[in-house]
């Protein structure tokens, strides 16, 4: 026994790295480690892989739980890091479909009703024709976003360990803008307000007001969507989860499902293993957590006093990102008959991001809604003669916690009714009359299936002080417990699939780097 009461000999099995959670971050980390021959054991509380990257059935419909578009994948001749990872490193055998249609944006109070494509030149052309005189400023602005994108690509390609001189020489704009909000930087370009509103179509990816949002993350989001196009798996996101899960085992990794990590065992500031809900102890020097620092530092580290004060301080200072309310509908008519002409809609009164955010912080039905009709992109997503429509609204992390268990079903129903009615009116279609299936997911649903704290979907908010660059700065802070790494939505980059995949892969590389260094010392 050591002084914390954890016996080093009382382990049931051992591995090099425990990956806790099988979201995109955890799966990517485990796959990368297994690929490199590192012993990895993946533990997931749910009975199957994926976290948010999953699907579910209702009647004869199957619904994608979360994925709208996969960014940073890219065409064969201009591969993004996701594609390089999946194809070249993992040989995952998972061809993706390119999403050709962009967004249909309707902002009723601003009289904006426009189709915006998922490519840079097309986007600028559309905005320029909608808002005469905006072309030049917008082009300059987009060039800046492109530069930020290239800088982020460079950091990713340098496997998280970029050469400062290269950054300084080639990616000055990243450093120059990192201290500013999206609003501050955007204002300098004097882009006509209507054009800025159209740009706001990317707002839901970040979900916090422009005047708090880090410009870095904003530019990264715009750049990801517009430069390499958007992709989607041939079936749905659960295909990515399943392919990665199978790959991990094929490469010699172990996967345990319906197994929850209850304790992360720490001795003298170092990870020594984990304990599961079944009481099994797995010995490991490294833990990669797909769960948030809030959960890990707040509940899982054992003994609790092993959490360094600085880690507590940082975690306490961060603000939980938003969660979502999602309505999934199976409709008994084809999309075109219902006038659902687009893959994805963004519907709101205007692009007042502060207002939208404030409404999302109250327990009232939201007005800003995105609506996804996957039939335009994924063949066979629903039975012939039918279509699906999936609505998303964002809510603050503390909103749905106000709903008591006894009111929960009724509240979900009330919000769903409002959301569907709003979309019916805005698009001018008929949904209630064709409703064959309807299900809604609230933060409670996400918490249930992914264990996320308060059902948060978007990690921590990307305030200027807590975005890519400062997170890169605070990485050593998170390393306060030796052997502990974080991946997923609360990681370095913008939340979302490609970011989680990238953080997973990077964390594997980081650990392998440290392992090498350690073995050099002990040799």
């Amino acid at each position, binding site marked *: 026994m050591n002084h914390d009461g954890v016996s080093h000999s009382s382990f049931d099995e051992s591995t090099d790295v425990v990956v806790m959670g099988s979201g995109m971050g955890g799966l990517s980390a485990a796959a990368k480690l297994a690929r490199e021959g590192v012993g990895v054991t993946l533990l997931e509380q749910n*009975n199957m892989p994926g976290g948010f990257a999953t*699907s*579910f*059935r209702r009647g004869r419909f*199957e619904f994608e739980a979360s994925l709208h578009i996969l960014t940073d994948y890219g065409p064969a001749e201009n591969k993004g890091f996701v594609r390089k990872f999946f194809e070249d490193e993992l040989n995952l055998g998972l061809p993706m479909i390119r999403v050709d249609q962009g967004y249909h944006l309707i902002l009723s109070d601003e009289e904006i009703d426009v189709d915006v494509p998922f490519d840079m030149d097309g986007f600028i052309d559309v905005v320029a024709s909608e808002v005469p005189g905006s072309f030049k400023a917008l082009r300059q602005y987009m060039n800046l976003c492109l530069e930020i994108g290239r800088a982020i690509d460079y950091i990713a390609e340098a496997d998280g360990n*970029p050469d*400062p001189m290269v950054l*300084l020489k080639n990616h000055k704009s990243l*450093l120059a803008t*990192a*201290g*500013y909000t999206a609003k501050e930087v955007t204002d300098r370009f004097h882009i006509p307000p209507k054009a800025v509103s159209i740009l706001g179509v990317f707002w839901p990816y970040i979900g916090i007001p422009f005047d708090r949002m880090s410009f870095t993350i904003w530019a990264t989001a715009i750049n990801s969507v517009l430069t390499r196009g958007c992709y989607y798996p041939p*079936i*749905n996101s*659960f*295909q990515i989860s*399943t392919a990665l899960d199978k790959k991990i085992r094929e490469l010699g990794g172990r996967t*345990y*499902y*319906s*197994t929850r990590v209850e304790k992360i065992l720490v001795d003298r500031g170092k990870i020594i293993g984990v304990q*599961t809900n*079944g009481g*099994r102890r797995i010995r490991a020097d490294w833990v990669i957590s797909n769960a948030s620092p*809030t*959960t890990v*530092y*707040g509940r899982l580290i054992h003994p609790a006093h092993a959490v360094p004060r600085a880690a507590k*301080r*940082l*975690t*306490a*200072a961060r603000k939980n990102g938003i969660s979502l309310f999602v309505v999934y509908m199976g409709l008994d008519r084809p999309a075109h008959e219902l006038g659902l002409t687009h893959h994805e809609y963004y519907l709101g009164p205007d692009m007042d991001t502060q207002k939208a955010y404030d409404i999302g912080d109250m327990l009232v039905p939201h007005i800003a809604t995105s609506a996804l009709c996957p039939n335009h992109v994924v063949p066979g997503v629903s039975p012939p003669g039918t279509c699906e429509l999936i609505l998303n609204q964002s809510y603050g992390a503390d909103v749905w*916690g106000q*709903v008591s268990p*006894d009111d*929960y*079903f009724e509240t979900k*129903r009330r919000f769903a009714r409002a959301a569907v009615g709003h979309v019916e009116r805005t698009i001018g279609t008929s949904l*209630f009359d*064709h*409703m*064959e299936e*309807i299900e809604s997911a609230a*933060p*409670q649903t996400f*918490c*249930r299936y992914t264990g996320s*704290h*308060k*059902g948060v979907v978007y990690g921590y908010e990307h*305030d*200027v*002080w*807590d975005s890519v*660059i*400062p997170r*890169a700065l605070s*990485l*050593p802070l998170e390393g306060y417990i030796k052997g502990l790494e974080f991946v997923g939505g609360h990681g370095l980059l913008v939340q979302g699939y490609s970011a989680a995949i990238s953080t997973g892969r990077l964390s594997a590389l980081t650990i392998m780097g440290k392992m090498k260094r350690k073995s050099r010392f002990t040799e």
Partner: protein
Amino acid sequence: MNFFEFTVGTVGTVRALAQRALKKAAARPFIDTDDPVRRTVSILHPPALDLVVSDVFEHGPDGRTFRLVPTGGKGDRLPPFRAGQYLSIKGTWGGACVSRPYSISSAPYEALLATGGYYEITVKRQSDGLVSPHIFSTWQKATRVSASGPHGEFYHEPLRDAGDIVAIAGGSGITPFLSMAREIIHGDMEARLVILYGVRTMDEALFEKELIRLAGVAPDRLRVCYVVSEPDGTEKCATGFIDEGLIKKEIGDISDKSFFVCGPQALYAFFNSEAQKLTIPRRRIRWEVSGPNRVIGAHPAFPKKATGREYALVVYLDRGQKTVPARAEEPILVALERAGIAADSRCRSGQCGICRAELISGEVFIDPENDARRRVDKEYGFIHSCSTYPVGDCTIRIVSPEVLTG
């Protein structure tokens, strides 16, 4: 100089901002783990329920209702549910770890009573069955029962379903409708319900008095119509089957009514053809999951060579493996249960996916009427073990949590 030192030097603004935020947090450097969302989830969807029988009510020789309350007594609360949902009852009977779904026959409001909530399930004894005879012979007041939380999609959803519900019930399939009837009469469910209850003889009808009483309270919201298929001439109700003619006569205009169907498997096929004659739109019919096909060997697509055969089933668990015998005409799930392997199950009808397993090799027959697998599972060789039958030696891998396999 590494990247971090470099950026610390360069991005002074960010650093200052971060320090300000951290300083503010330093005043209360504790991590707020309080999570009301998680608390709600643990009330709504507990991983398992420990219940105890508080009362038993007889309905003739072969029907019994068990009132189940939390073991913790009145302070303990039950998860809310929606009328029409079921509990999966778990137990070990004769060395087998099995589950059986039973619809909750009590009303949702009764689960939440401040004076002590309860669920009731009503079990019909199946003389050739496994679990129902055991329940009849062993459950009495104070018997401990383990169950899942409430599950299932067979409930009235006002955003989707019509306000007028037509229940097509057969045998013990009345139970979810009793729950709905009680909730409607109590005023907690906004719908009108007409129950067409098909029974062989009136003796078989469950809850006759209770249903008449409820319908008497509010005839505009609840009506019950018995349909006896083997009449002895004394009945005052309809006779025959719940067919097109009877539905037209009892229901009249079928437009804007939602049909909910629950009962024995034969009823499903029968009503399906009647519904087509009546041209009821698909979205207006909700089917309760029907349990495993009891005569899968008679399915036209079932491979004849497998009839009566038994095969070797190799089961990869998280740790180790087992080889167990598996009968061709029983779901793979039953082979696991017979072997005492506690694989999770819930609906036993191929719908919920909790029994998902990976088919590594071997030939299986998947009941096409009970195949609700997701597209990815079909593509990547996953099965639902409750609706999959071995028709050759097979190897599967199941999720085998330590807490279950023990």
